[in-house]
Protein backbone atom coordinates (compact mmCIF):
# COMPACT_ATOMS: atom_id res chain seq x y z
CA UNK A 1 0.00 0.00 0.00
CA UNK A 2 2.62 2.53 1.07
CA UNK A 3 4.80 1.30 -1.73
CA UNK A 4 2.06 1.79 -4.27
CA UNK A 5 1.47 5.28 -2.95
CA UNK A 6 5.13 6.12 -3.01
CA UNK A 7 5.39 4.76 -6.54
CA UNK A 8 2.47 6.91 -7.63
CA UNK A 9 3.98 9.99 -6.08
CA UNK A 10 7.29 9.22 -7.66
CA UNK A 11 5.77 8.81 -11.09
CA UNK A 12 3.73 12.00 -10.70
CA UNK A 13 6.80 13.91 -9.68
CA UNK A 14 8.30 13.24 -13.08
CA UNK A 15 9.95 15.97 -15.09
CA UNK A 16 13.14 15.80 -17.00
CA UNK A 17 13.49 12.04 -17.12
CA UNK A 18 16.78 10.56 -18.23
CA UNK A 19 17.48 8.08 -21.03
CA UNK A 20 16.58 5.05 -18.95
CA UNK A 21 13.33 6.70 -17.96
CA UNK A 22 13.67 7.29 -14.25
CA UNK A 23 14.60 9.98 -11.80
CA UNK A 24 17.98 9.97 -10.02
CA UNK A 25 17.72 7.92 -6.82
CA UNK A 26 19.51 7.79 -3.53
CA UNK A 27 20.42 4.22 -2.65
CA UNK A 28 21.79 3.15 0.70
CA UNK A 29 23.75 0.04 1.45
CA UNK A 30 25.87 -1.24 4.30
CA UNK A 31 28.19 -4.08 5.12
CA UNK A 32 31.59 -5.47 4.28
CA UNK A 33 34.74 -3.38 4.60
CA UNK A 34 36.67 -5.92 2.51
CA UNK A 35 35.52 -4.61 -0.93
CA UNK A 36 35.09 -1.01 0.28
CA UNK A 37 37.72 0.62 -1.98
CA UNK A 38 36.27 -1.19 -5.01
CA UNK A 39 32.75 -0.09 -4.12
CA UNK A 40 33.91 3.49 -3.62
CA UNK A 41 35.04 3.74 -7.24
CA UNK A 42 32.21 1.74 -8.72
CA UNK A 43 29.49 3.64 -6.87
CA UNK A 44 31.02 6.94 -7.84
CA UNK A 45 31.24 5.98 -11.50
CA UNK A 46 27.72 4.59 -11.43
CA UNK A 47 26.56 7.91 -10.00
CA UNK A 48 27.93 9.71 -13.03
CA UNK A 49 25.75 7.70 -15.42
CA UNK A 50 22.33 8.71 -14.13
CA UNK A 51 23.11 11.15 -11.29
CA UNK A 52 22.10 8.45 -8.83
CA UNK A 53 23.71 8.57 -5.46
CA UNK A 54 24.86 5.54 -3.48
CA UNK A 55 25.57 5.93 0.24
CA UNK A 56 27.53 2.98 1.53
CA UNK A 57 28.52 2.33 5.14
CA UNK A 58 31.42 -0.03 5.74
CA UNK A 59 30.12 -1.37 9.05
CA UNK A 60 31.13 -5.02 8.62
CA UNK A 61 29.25 -7.85 6.94
CA UNK A 62 27.44 -8.73 10.17
CA UNK A 63 26.00 -5.25 10.50
CA UNK A 64 25.07 -5.12 6.81
CA UNK A 65 23.02 -8.31 6.97
CA UNK A 66 21.28 -7.07 10.12
CA UNK A 67 20.38 -3.82 8.37
CA UNK A 68 18.93 -5.74 5.43
CA UNK A 69 16.91 -7.85 7.81
CA UNK A 70 15.65 -4.69 9.53
CA UNK A 71 14.79 -3.45 6.03
CA UNK A 72 16.56 -0.15 6.44
CA UNK A 73 18.91 -0.48 3.45
CA UNK A 74 18.52 -1.12 -0.26
CA UNK A 75 21.27 -3.70 -0.23
CA UNK A 76 23.70 -5.41 2.10
CA UNK A 77 27.26 -6.33 1.21
CA UNK A 78 28.87 -9.39 2.68
CA UNK A 79 31.97 -11.52 2.13
CA UNK A 80 30.10 -14.46 3.58
CA UNK A 81 27.03 -15.69 1.77
CA UNK A 82 24.00 -16.08 3.99
CA UNK A 83 23.76 -19.50 5.56
CA UNK A 84 20.56 -21.49 5.19
CA UNK A 85 19.65 -20.57 8.74
CA UNK A 86 20.19 -16.88 8.06
CA UNK A 87 18.12 -17.16 4.88
CA UNK A 88 15.33 -18.68 6.94
CA UNK A 89 15.59 -15.99 9.63
CA UNK A 90 15.42 -13.18 7.14
CA UNK A 91 12.05 -14.65 6.02
CA UNK A 92 11.70 -13.00 2.60
CA UNK A 93 13.77 -14.56 -0.19
CA UNK A 94 17.00 -12.81 -1.10
CA UNK A 95 19.31 -12.87 -4.10
CA UNK A 96 23.08 -13.00 -3.90
CA UNK A 97 25.03 -11.13 -6.56
CA UNK A 98 28.80 -11.63 -6.55
CA UNK A 99 30.58 -8.35 -7.31
CA UNK A 100 34.26 -9.28 -7.41
CA UNK A 101 36.79 -11.66 -5.95
CA UNK A 102 39.50 -11.02 -3.43
CA UNK A 103 42.06 -12.63 -1.21
CA UNK A 104 42.40 -12.71 2.54
CA UNK A 105 46.09 -12.39 3.28
CA UNK A 106 48.12 -13.25 6.35
CA UNK A 107 49.88 -9.96 7.03
CA UNK A 108 52.67 -9.87 9.58
CA UNK A 109 55.05 -7.54 11.32
CA UNK A 110 58.45 -9.19 11.78
CA UNK A 111 61.60 -7.13 11.71
CA UNK A 112 63.87 -8.17 8.87
CA UNK A 113 61.58 -10.89 7.53
CA UNK A 114 60.42 -10.03 4.04
CA UNK A 115 59.30 -13.45 2.83
CA UNK A 116 57.27 -15.81 4.94
CA UNK A 117 55.77 -19.15 3.97
CA UNK A 118 52.80 -20.63 5.77
CA UNK A 119 50.59 -23.67 5.45
CA UNK A 120 46.99 -24.16 6.52
CA UNK A 121 47.59 -26.35 9.55
CA UNK A 122 50.34 -24.04 10.81
CA UNK A 123 48.04 -21.00 10.47
CA UNK A 124 45.33 -22.87 12.36
CA UNK A 125 47.71 -23.74 15.17
CA UNK A 126 48.98 -20.17 15.40
CA UNK A 127 45.47 -18.77 15.76
CA UNK A 128 44.47 -21.55 18.13
CA UNK A 129 47.38 -20.57 20.36
CA UNK A 130 49.15 -23.92 19.90
CA UNK A 131 52.14 -22.47 18.09
CA UNK A 132 53.23 -19.70 20.40
CA UNK A 133 56.70 -18.69 19.22
CA UNK A 134 57.98 -17.43 15.90
CA UNK A 135 60.95 -19.80 16.01
CA UNK A 136 58.70 -22.85 16.35
CA UNK A 137 60.13 -25.88 14.56
CA UNK A 138 57.16 -26.15 12.18
CA UNK A 139 57.49 -22.52 11.10
CA UNK A 140 61.24 -22.96 10.69
CA UNK A 141 60.68 -26.03 8.49
CA UNK A 142 58.48 -23.97 6.14
CA UNK A 143 60.98 -21.14 6.06
CA UNK A 144 64.45 -22.66 5.76
CA UNK A 145 66.01 -19.45 4.37
CA UNK A 146 64.74 -17.14 7.09
CA UNK A 147 65.85 -16.70 10.69
CA UNK A 148 62.68 -16.32 12.72
CA UNK A 149 63.00 -14.51 16.07
CA UNK A 150 62.49 -16.17 19.44
CA UNK A 151 59.51 -13.95 20.17
CA UNK A 152 55.92 -14.67 21.09
CA UNK A 153 53.45 -14.57 18.21
CA UNK A 154 50.62 -12.05 18.61
CA UNK A 155 47.60 -13.10 16.54
CA UNK A 156 45.41 -10.18 15.47
CA UNK A 157 41.77 -10.71 14.58
CA UNK A 158 38.44 -8.96 14.22
CA UNK A 159 36.38 -7.61 17.12
CA UNK A 160 33.30 -7.16 14.93
CA UNK A 161 31.31 -9.68 12.94
CA UNK A 162 33.08 -10.04 9.65
CA UNK A 163 32.84 -11.80 6.34
CA UNK A 164 36.62 -11.78 6.26
CA UNK A 165 36.63 -13.78 9.48
CA UNK A 166 34.15 -16.19 7.93
CA UNK A 167 36.33 -16.74 4.85
CA UNK A 168 39.42 -17.19 6.98
CA UNK A 169 37.85 -19.61 9.45
CA UNK A 170 36.04 -21.43 6.66
CA UNK A 171 39.47 -22.11 5.20
CA UNK A 172 40.91 -23.21 8.54
CA UNK A 173 37.95 -25.52 9.08
CA UNK A 174 38.76 -27.23 5.79
CA UNK A 175 42.45 -27.67 6.45
CA UNK A 176 42.54 -28.40 10.18
CA UNK A 177 40.34 -30.96 11.94
CA UNK A 178 41.43 -29.45 15.25
CA UNK A 179 40.12 -26.04 14.14
CA UNK A 180 36.88 -27.53 12.90
CA UNK A 181 36.22 -29.20 16.19
CA UNK A 182 37.30 -26.42 18.55
CA UNK A 183 36.36 -23.19 16.77
CA UNK A 184 34.50 -23.81 13.52
CA UNK A 185 33.71 -21.25 10.85
CA UNK A 186 31.73 -18.08 11.40
CA UNK A 187 31.58 -14.32 11.14
CA UNK A 188 32.75 -14.13 14.74
CA UNK A 189 34.92 -16.78 16.32
CA UNK A 190 36.32 -16.90 19.84
CA UNK A 191 40.03 -16.72 19.24
CA UNK A 192 41.78 -17.82 22.41
CA UNK A 193 44.70 -15.38 22.47
CA UNK A 194 46.00 -12.22 20.89
CA UNK A 195 44.32 -8.95 20.18
CA UNK A 196 41.22 -7.84 18.27
CA UNK A 197 40.50 -4.73 16.20
CA UNK A 198 37.55 -3.29 14.32
CA UNK A 199 37.21 -3.72 10.58
CA UNK A 200 39.80 -4.78 8.03
CA UNK A 201 41.60 -1.43 8.31
CA UNK A 202 41.68 -1.70 12.10
CA UNK A 203 43.38 -5.09 11.94
CA UNK A 204 45.88 -3.75 9.40
CA UNK A 205 46.55 -0.82 11.72
CA UNK A 206 47.21 -3.01 14.74
CA UNK A 207 49.56 -5.25 12.73
CA UNK A 208 51.47 -2.23 11.45
CA UNK A 209 51.79 -0.97 15.03
CA UNK A 210 52.63 -4.23 16.78
CA UNK A 211 55.89 -6.08 16.44
CA UNK A 212 55.71 -9.86 16.09
CA UNK A 213 52.04 -9.80 15.20
CA UNK A 214 50.20 -11.64 12.43
CA UNK A 215 46.64 -11.20 11.28
CA UNK A 216 44.21 -11.79 8.42
CA UNK A 217 43.02 -8.88 6.29
CA UNK A 218 41.62 -8.17 2.86
CA UNK A 219 44.64 -7.99 0.57
CA UNK A 220 44.25 -4.34 -0.45
CA UNK A 221 44.58 -3.20 3.15
CA UNK A 222 47.96 -4.89 3.41
CA UNK A 223 48.98 -3.38 0.07
CA UNK A 224 47.95 0.13 1.09
CA UNK A 225 49.80 -0.01 4.39
CA UNK A 226 52.75 -1.75 2.74
CA UNK A 227 52.59 -4.57 5.26
CA UNK A 228 54.23 -7.80 4.06
CA UNK A 229 52.06 -10.90 3.76
CA UNK A 230 52.78 -14.60 3.59
CA UNK A 231 52.79 -17.05 0.71
CA UNK A 232 50.48 -19.88 1.54
CA UNK A 233 50.70 -23.52 0.54
CA UNK A 234 47.57 -24.59 -1.35
CA UNK A 235 46.07 -28.05 -1.61
CA UNK A 236 48.64 -29.06 -4.23
CA UNK A 237 51.47 -27.92 -1.99
CA UNK A 238 52.37 -24.95 -4.18
CA UNK A 239 53.38 -21.80 -2.29
CA UNK A 240 51.12 -19.11 -3.75
CA UNK A 241 51.02 -15.34 -3.52
CA UNK A 242 47.68 -13.58 -3.75
CA UNK A 243 47.41 -12.10 -7.27
CA UNK A 244 44.52 -11.53 -9.65
CA UNK A 245 45.56 -14.71 -11.48
CA UNK A 246 45.87 -16.91 -8.38
CA UNK A 247 42.54 -15.65 -7.02
CA UNK A 248 40.80 -16.28 -10.36
CA UNK A 249 42.30 -19.76 -10.44
CA UNK A 250 40.50 -20.53 -7.19
CA UNK A 251 37.13 -19.89 -8.85
CA UNK A 252 37.67 -22.21 -11.81
CA UNK A 253 35.44 -24.90 -10.28
CA UNK A 254 31.66 -25.32 -10.23
CA UNK A 255 29.48 -22.37 -9.23
CA UNK A 256 25.94 -23.15 -8.02
CA UNK A 257 22.97 -21.30 -9.51
CA UNK A 258 22.49 -19.04 -6.50
CA UNK A 259 26.28 -18.31 -6.48
CA UNK A 260 26.50 -19.14 -2.79
CA UNK A 261 29.75 -21.05 -2.68
CA UNK A 262 33.01 -21.07 -0.86
CA UNK A 263 36.16 -21.18 -2.97
CA UNK A 264 38.67 -21.51 -0.14
CA UNK A 265 41.18 -24.36 -0.24
CA UNK A 266 40.65 -24.83 -3.98
CA UNK A 267 42.47 -27.79 -5.54
CA UNK A 268 43.04 -25.94 -8.84
CA UNK A 269 46.56 -25.36 -10.05
CA UNK A 270 48.08 -22.10 -8.86
CA UNK A 271 45.02 -21.23 -6.76
CA UNK A 272 45.45 -18.96 -3.76
CA UNK A 273 43.77 -20.93 -0.98
CA UNK A 274 42.06 -18.09 0.96
CA UNK A 275 40.18 -16.54 -1.95
CA UNK A 276 36.55 -15.50 -1.90
CA UNK A 277 33.72 -13.94 -3.80
CA UNK A 278 32.16 -10.95 -2.18
CA UNK A 279 28.43 -10.44 -2.57
CA UNK A 280 25.74 -7.84 -2.58
CA UNK A 281 22.51 -9.21 -1.17
CA UNK A 282 19.08 -7.80 -2.04
CA UNK A 283 15.50 -8.82 -1.48
CA UNK A 284 13.86 -10.63 -4.33
CA UNK A 285 10.69 -8.63 -3.72
CA UNK A 286 11.82 -5.02 -3.83
CA UNK A 287 8.69 -3.43 -2.40
CA UNK A 288 9.42 -3.04 1.30
CA UNK A 289 9.59 -0.22 3.81
CA UNK A 290 8.61 2.75 1.65
CA UNK A 291 10.76 2.06 -1.37
CA UNK A 292 9.58 3.24 -4.77
CA UNK A 293 9.70 1.25 -7.96
CA UNK A 294 12.31 3.61 -9.30
CA UNK A 295 14.48 2.81 -6.30
CA UNK A 296 14.14 -0.86 -7.14
CA UNK A 297 15.12 -0.11 -10.73
CA UNK A 298 18.08 1.93 -9.59
CA UNK A 299 19.22 -0.95 -7.38
CA UNK A 300 19.13 -3.31 -10.33
CA UNK A 301 20.86 -0.76 -12.57
CA UNK A 302 23.62 -0.57 -9.99
CA UNK A 303 24.06 -4.34 -9.89
CA UNK A 304 24.09 -4.56 -13.68
CA UNK A 305 26.70 -1.84 -13.77
CA UNK A 306 28.87 -3.78 -11.31
CA UNK A 307 28.60 -6.86 -13.53
CA UNK A 308 29.54 -4.84 -16.64
CA UNK A 309 32.97 -5.11 -18.22
CA UNK A 310 33.66 -1.51 -17.39
CA UNK A 311 33.22 -2.03 -13.66
CA UNK A 312 34.90 -5.43 -13.65
CA UNK A 313 37.87 -3.79 -15.34
CA UNK A 314 38.37 -1.61 -12.28
CA UNK A 315 38.89 -4.60 -9.98
CA UNK A 316 42.54 -5.14 -10.77
CA UNK A 317 43.29 -1.46 -10.20
CA UNK A 318 42.28 -1.89 -6.55
CA UNK A 319 43.88 -5.34 -6.12
CA UNK A 320 40.79 -7.47 -6.57
CA UNK A 321 40.11 -10.03 -9.28
CA UNK A 322 37.29 -9.80 -11.85
CA UNK A 323 34.41 -12.27 -11.73
CA UNK A 324 34.57 -15.37 -13.94
CA UNK A 325 32.19 -15.24 -16.93
CA UNK A 326 30.00 -17.93 -15.43
CA UNK A 327 29.33 -16.00 -12.24
CA UNK A 328 28.32 -12.94 -14.27
CA UNK A 329 26.02 -15.03 -16.45
CA UNK A 330 24.32 -16.67 -13.45
CA UNK A 331 23.87 -13.32 -11.73
CA UNK A 332 22.22 -11.73 -14.75
CA UNK A 333 19.80 -14.66 -14.84
CA UNK A 334 19.12 -14.34 -11.11
CA UNK A 335 18.43 -10.62 -11.38
CA UNK A 336 15.59 -11.34 -13.79
CA UNK A 337 13.68 -12.87 -10.90
CA UNK A 338 13.63 -9.62 -8.95
CA UNK A 339 10.11 -8.27 -8.59
CA UNK A 340 8.32 -5.16 -7.44
CA UNK A 341 4.87 -5.93 -6.07
CA UNK A 342 5.16 -9.32 -7.72
CA UNK A 343 5.94 -7.96 -11.20
CA UNK A 344 9.39 -8.54 -12.65
CA UNK A 345 11.34 -5.31 -12.66
CA UNK A 346 13.35 -6.20 -15.74
CA UNK A 347 11.38 -6.91 -18.88
Amino acid at each position, binding site marked *: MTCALAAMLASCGGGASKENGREPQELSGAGATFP*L*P*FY*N*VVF*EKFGQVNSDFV*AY*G*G*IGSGGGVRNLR*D*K*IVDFAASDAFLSDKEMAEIKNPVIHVPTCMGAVVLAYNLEGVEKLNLSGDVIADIFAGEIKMWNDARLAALNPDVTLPAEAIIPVFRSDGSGTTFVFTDYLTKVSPMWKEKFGAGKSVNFPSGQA*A*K*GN*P*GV*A*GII*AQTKNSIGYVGS*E*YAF*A*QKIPYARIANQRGELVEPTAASISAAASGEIPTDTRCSITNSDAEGAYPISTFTWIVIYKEQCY*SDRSKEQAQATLDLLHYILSDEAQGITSE*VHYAPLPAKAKELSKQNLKQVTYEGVAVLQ
Partner: protein
Amino acid sequence: MNKTNTQHRLAKDRLMLWGVCLFATLTAVPLFAILGEVLLRGYDQLSWSFFTEPTPTAYKVMKAIEAGQSIPGGIANGIVGTVLMLSMASLVAIPAGILCGAFLAENSKNRFAQIVSYLTDLLQGTPSVIIGIVTYIWVVVPMRGYSAIAGSVALFVMMLPLIIRSTEETLKILPASLKEAGLALGGNRARVMLKVQLPAAFGGIFTGVLLAISRVIGETAPLMFTALGCSFIRWSIDKPISAVPLLIWEFFNDPNLQELIWGASLFLLLFVLTLNLLSKYLAKKWNQ
Protein backbone atom coordinates in the same frame (compact mmCIF):
# COMPACT_ATOMS: atom_id res chain seq x y z
CA MET B 1 67.14 10.96 72.08
CA ASN B 2 64.35 13.48 72.18
CA LYS B 3 66.20 15.70 69.73
CA THR B 4 66.69 12.98 67.12
CA ASN B 5 63.05 12.13 67.49
CA THR B 6 62.04 15.70 66.74
CA GLN B 7 64.42 15.81 63.79
CA HIS B 8 62.91 12.61 62.56
CA ARG B 9 59.42 14.04 62.81
CA LEU B 10 60.42 17.23 61.05
CA ALA B 11 62.09 15.26 58.28
CA LYS B 12 58.92 13.26 57.87
CA ASP B 13 56.93 16.47 57.73
CA ARG B 14 59.14 17.86 55.00
CA LEU B 15 59.08 14.59 53.10
CA MET B 16 55.30 14.66 53.16
CA LEU B 17 55.22 18.23 51.85
CA TRP B 18 57.60 17.44 49.01
CA GLY B 19 55.81 14.22 48.24
CA VAL B 20 52.47 16.01 47.99
CA CYS B 21 53.98 18.72 45.78
CA LEU B 22 55.71 16.19 43.54
CA PHE B 23 52.73 13.93 42.99
CA ALA B 24 50.31 16.82 42.65
CA THR B 25 52.54 18.30 39.95
CA LEU B 26 52.83 14.92 38.24
CA THR B 27 49.06 14.90 37.88
CA ALA B 28 49.32 17.90 35.60
CA VAL B 29 51.68 15.99 33.30
CA PRO B 30 49.02 14.00 31.39
CA LEU B 31 47.10 17.17 30.51
CA PHE B 32 50.16 18.74 28.95
CA ALA B 33 51.32 15.47 27.43
CA ILE B 34 47.96 14.97 25.72
CA LEU B 35 47.64 18.60 24.70
CA GLY B 36 51.23 18.62 23.44
CA GLU B 37 50.90 15.44 21.42
CA VAL B 38 47.63 16.46 19.82
CA LEU B 39 48.99 19.93 19.06
CA LEU B 40 52.30 18.77 17.62
CA ARG B 41 50.79 16.07 15.46
CA GLY B 42 47.64 17.95 14.54
CA TYR B 43 48.47 21.56 13.86
CA ASP B 44 49.76 21.05 10.32
CA GLN B 45 46.69 19.00 9.39
CA LEU B 46 44.43 21.96 9.94
CA SER B 47 43.69 23.95 6.82
CA TRP B 48 40.72 25.63 5.23
CA SER B 49 39.74 22.52 3.30
CA PHE B 50 39.91 20.48 6.50
CA PHE B 51 36.81 22.33 7.68
CA THR B 52 34.98 22.57 4.36
CA GLU B 53 35.39 19.13 2.83
CA PRO B 54 33.91 15.80 3.91
CA THR B 55 35.97 12.73 4.70
CA PRO B 56 37.51 11.08 1.65
CA THR B 57 36.51 7.61 0.47
CA ALA B 58 38.76 4.63 1.21
CA TYR B 59 39.61 4.48 -2.51
CA LYS B 60 40.76 8.09 -2.79
CA VAL B 61 42.84 7.71 0.33
CA MET B 62 44.53 4.57 -0.95
CA LYS B 63 45.33 6.20 -4.28
CA ALA B 64 46.78 9.24 -2.51
CA ILE B 65 48.89 7.06 -0.25
CA GLU B 66 50.13 4.98 -3.17
CA ALA B 67 51.08 8.16 -5.00
CA GLY B 68 52.80 9.47 -1.88
CA GLN B 69 50.49 12.48 -1.62
CA SER B 70 48.82 13.82 1.48
CA ILE B 71 45.28 12.56 1.72
CA PRO B 72 42.42 14.79 0.56
CA GLY B 73 39.33 15.87 2.44
CA GLY B 74 38.42 17.00 5.92
CA ILE B 75 35.85 16.68 8.67
CA ALA B 76 33.07 18.97 7.43
CA ASN B 77 30.53 16.14 7.55
CA GLY B 78 31.33 15.62 11.23
CA ILE B 79 31.14 19.30 12.08
CA VAL B 80 27.75 19.59 10.39
CA GLY B 81 26.44 16.57 12.28
CA THR B 82 27.75 17.76 15.62
CA VAL B 83 26.26 21.23 15.13
CA LEU B 84 22.92 19.83 13.97
CA MET B 85 22.50 17.26 16.73
CA LEU B 86 23.80 19.52 19.47
CA SER B 87 21.44 22.32 18.45
CA MET B 88 18.43 20.02 18.42
CA ALA B 89 19.39 18.55 21.79
CA SER B 90 20.03 21.98 23.33
CA LEU B 91 16.79 23.37 22.02
CA VAL B 92 14.86 20.94 24.19
CA ALA B 93 17.32 20.26 27.00
CA ILE B 94 17.94 23.90 27.96
CA PRO B 95 14.31 24.98 28.58
CA ALA B 96 13.34 21.62 30.07
CA GLY B 97 16.42 21.56 32.27
CA ILE B 98 15.93 25.12 33.51
CA LEU B 99 12.26 24.56 34.32
CA CYS B 100 13.01 21.29 36.09
CA GLY B 101 15.86 22.96 37.99
CA ALA B 102 13.49 25.77 39.00
CA PHE B 103 11.01 23.18 40.24
CA LEU B 104 13.66 21.54 42.40
CA ALA B 105 14.84 24.88 43.79
CA GLU B 106 11.30 25.96 44.70
CA ASN B 107 10.12 22.70 46.22
CA SER B 108 13.22 21.29 47.86
CA LYS B 109 11.24 19.87 50.79
CA ASN B 110 8.62 18.23 48.64
CA ARG B 111 8.79 14.43 48.44
CA PHE B 112 8.29 14.31 44.68
CA ALA B 113 11.08 16.86 44.24
CA GLN B 114 13.40 14.67 46.28
CA ILE B 115 12.67 11.75 44.01
CA VAL B 116 13.28 13.90 40.93
CA SER B 117 16.52 15.10 42.50
CA TYR B 118 17.61 11.54 43.15
CA LEU B 119 16.74 10.52 39.58
CA THR B 120 18.79 13.43 38.27
CA ASP B 121 21.81 12.04 40.08
CA LEU B 122 21.01 8.59 38.75
CA LEU B 123 20.85 9.77 35.17
CA GLN B 124 23.98 11.86 35.53
CA GLY B 125 25.90 8.82 36.73
CA THR B 126 24.59 6.50 34.01
CA PRO B 127 27.36 5.46 31.62
CA SER B 128 26.91 7.10 28.24
CA VAL B 129 27.07 3.77 26.40
CA ILE B 130 23.83 2.80 28.17
CA ILE B 131 22.17 6.02 27.04
CA GLY B 132 23.21 4.87 23.56
CA ILE B 133 21.53 1.45 23.92
CA VAL B 134 18.38 2.95 25.33
CA THR B 135 18.08 5.58 22.61
CA TYR B 136 18.58 2.83 20.07
CA ILE B 137 15.60 1.00 21.56
CA TRP B 138 13.51 4.18 21.89
CA VAL B 139 14.21 5.83 18.57
CA VAL B 140 16.25 3.78 16.10
CA VAL B 141 14.11 0.64 16.25
CA PRO B 142 10.70 2.32 15.84
CA MET B 143 12.05 4.71 13.16
CA ARG B 144 13.63 1.79 11.34
CA GLY B 145 16.96 3.43 10.97
CA TYR B 146 19.76 5.49 12.43
CA SER B 147 19.24 9.23 12.31
CA ALA B 148 20.32 12.63 13.50
CA ILE B 149 17.14 12.69 15.59
CA ALA B 150 18.23 9.58 17.47
CA GLY B 151 21.64 11.13 18.08
CA SER B 152 20.08 14.30 19.46
CA VAL B 153 17.83 12.33 21.80
CA ALA B 154 20.93 10.64 23.25
CA LEU B 155 22.68 13.98 23.68
CA PHE B 156 19.52 15.47 25.18
CA VAL B 157 19.33 12.76 27.84
CA MET B 158 22.95 13.39 28.76
CA MET B 159 22.64 17.18 28.89
CA LEU B 160 19.44 17.25 30.90
CA PRO B 161 20.75 16.33 34.37
CA LEU B 162 23.74 18.66 34.01
CA ILE B 163 21.52 21.64 33.24
CA ILE B 164 19.00 20.73 35.95
CA ARG B 165 21.73 20.57 38.58
CA SER B 166 23.41 23.83 37.64
CA THR B 167 20.08 25.68 37.48
CA GLU B 168 18.95 24.30 40.81
CA GLU B 169 22.20 25.11 42.54
CA THR B 170 22.38 28.62 41.14
CA LEU B 171 18.80 29.41 42.13
CA LYS B 172 19.33 28.02 45.61
CA ILE B 173 22.28 30.28 46.38
CA LEU B 174 20.40 33.40 45.33
CA PRO B 175 19.57 35.46 48.41
CA ALA B 176 16.07 34.62 49.62
CA SER B 177 15.47 38.36 50.03
CA LEU B 178 15.50 38.71 46.24
CA LYS B 179 12.50 36.49 45.82
CA GLU B 180 10.71 37.91 48.85
CA ALA B 181 11.20 41.47 47.64
CA GLY B 182 9.81 40.51 44.27
CA LEU B 183 6.75 38.87 45.83
CA ALA B 184 6.27 41.83 48.20
CA LEU B 185 6.19 44.17 45.24
CA GLY B 186 3.14 42.29 44.05
CA GLY B 187 4.62 40.00 41.44
CA ASN B 188 3.23 36.49 41.28
CA ARG B 189 5.65 33.59 41.51
CA ALA B 190 5.92 33.15 37.77
CA ARG B 191 6.77 36.81 37.26
CA VAL B 192 9.29 36.81 40.06
CA MET B 193 10.97 33.72 38.63
CA LEU B 194 10.99 35.09 35.11
CA LYS B 195 11.85 38.71 35.82
CA VAL B 196 13.90 38.51 39.01
CA GLN B 197 15.31 35.11 39.85
CA LEU B 198 16.23 33.75 36.43
CA PRO B 199 17.95 36.98 35.31
CA ALA B 200 19.88 37.05 38.56
CA ALA B 201 20.84 33.42 38.06
CA PHE B 202 21.62 33.87 34.38
CA GLY B 203 25.38 33.68 34.85
CA GLY B 204 25.29 30.40 36.72
CA ILE B 205 22.78 28.82 34.37
CA PHE B 206 24.71 29.95 31.30
CA THR B 207 27.92 28.44 32.67
CA GLY B 208 26.05 25.25 33.39
CA VAL B 209 24.83 25.08 29.81
CA LEU B 210 28.33 25.69 28.46
CA LEU B 211 29.69 22.91 30.66
CA ALA B 212 26.91 20.57 29.60
CA ILE B 213 27.72 21.21 25.93
CA SER B 214 31.43 20.69 26.49
CA ARG B 215 30.65 17.44 28.29
CA VAL B 216 28.52 15.89 25.55
CA ILE B 217 30.26 17.26 22.46
CA GLY B 218 33.01 14.66 22.75
CA GLU B 219 30.66 11.74 23.43
CA THR B 220 31.24 8.89 21.03
CA ALA B 221 29.68 5.68 22.30
CA PRO B 222 26.03 6.84 22.36
CA LEU B 223 26.32 8.25 18.84
CA MET B 224 27.70 4.98 17.43
CA PHE B 225 24.33 3.31 18.05
CA THR B 226 22.13 6.25 17.12
CA ALA B 227 23.66 8.60 14.52
CA LEU B 228 25.88 5.85 13.04
CA GLY B 229 27.97 8.14 10.81
CA CYS B 230 27.87 9.28 7.22
CA SER B 231 30.66 10.05 4.80
CA PHE B 232 29.18 13.14 3.17
CA ILE B 233 27.69 16.43 4.29
CA ARG B 234 23.96 16.40 4.83
CA TRP B 235 21.48 18.33 6.89
CA SER B 236 18.57 15.88 6.99
CA ILE B 237 17.43 14.96 10.47
CA ASP B 238 15.96 11.56 9.64
CA LYS B 239 19.07 10.07 8.03
CA PRO B 240 22.31 8.75 9.50
CA ILE B 241 24.73 11.54 10.22
CA SER B 242 28.31 11.90 11.34
CA ALA B 243 29.84 13.81 14.24
CA VAL B 244 33.38 14.90 15.04
CA PRO B 245 34.00 12.25 17.74
CA LEU B 246 32.49 9.58 15.47
CA LEU B 247 34.97 10.57 12.77
CA ILE B 248 37.86 10.30 15.22
CA TRP B 249 36.68 6.77 15.99
CA GLU B 250 36.52 5.97 12.26
CA PHE B 251 39.99 7.38 11.69
CA PHE B 252 41.28 5.41 14.65
CA ASN B 253 40.02 2.22 13.05
CA ASP B 254 41.51 2.96 9.64
CA PRO B 255 45.27 3.39 9.40
CA ASN B 256 44.87 4.94 5.94
CA LEU B 257 43.03 7.86 7.49
CA GLN B 258 45.53 8.45 10.26
CA GLU B 259 46.62 11.74 8.76
CA LEU B 260 43.23 13.17 9.65
CA ILE B 261 43.00 11.87 13.18
CA TRP B 262 45.17 14.44 14.92
CA GLY B 263 43.65 17.43 13.21
CA ALA B 264 40.16 16.26 14.17
CA SER B 265 41.28 15.60 17.75
CA LEU B 266 42.98 18.96 18.00
CA PHE B 267 39.83 20.68 16.82
CA LEU B 268 37.66 18.82 19.31
CA LEU B 269 40.09 19.21 22.18
CA LEU B 270 40.59 22.94 21.69
CA PHE B 271 36.85 23.43 21.44
CA VAL B 272 36.14 21.51 24.63
CA LEU B 273 38.94 23.07 26.65
CA THR B 274 38.00 26.58 25.50
CA LEU B 275 34.39 26.00 26.57
CA ASN B 276 35.65 24.74 29.92
CA LEU B 277 37.93 27.70 30.52
CA LEU B 278 35.32 30.15 29.29
CA SER B 279 32.71 28.78 31.65
CA LYS B 280 35.19 28.91 34.53
CA TYR B 281 36.05 32.51 33.70
CA LEU B 282 32.42 33.52 33.37
CA ALA B 283 31.49 31.81 36.60
CA LYS B 284 34.18 33.77 38.40
CA LYS B 285 33.16 37.02 36.77
CA TRP B 286 29.49 36.64 37.55
CA ASN B 287 30.15 35.58 41.11
CA GLN B 288 31.87 38.86 41.86
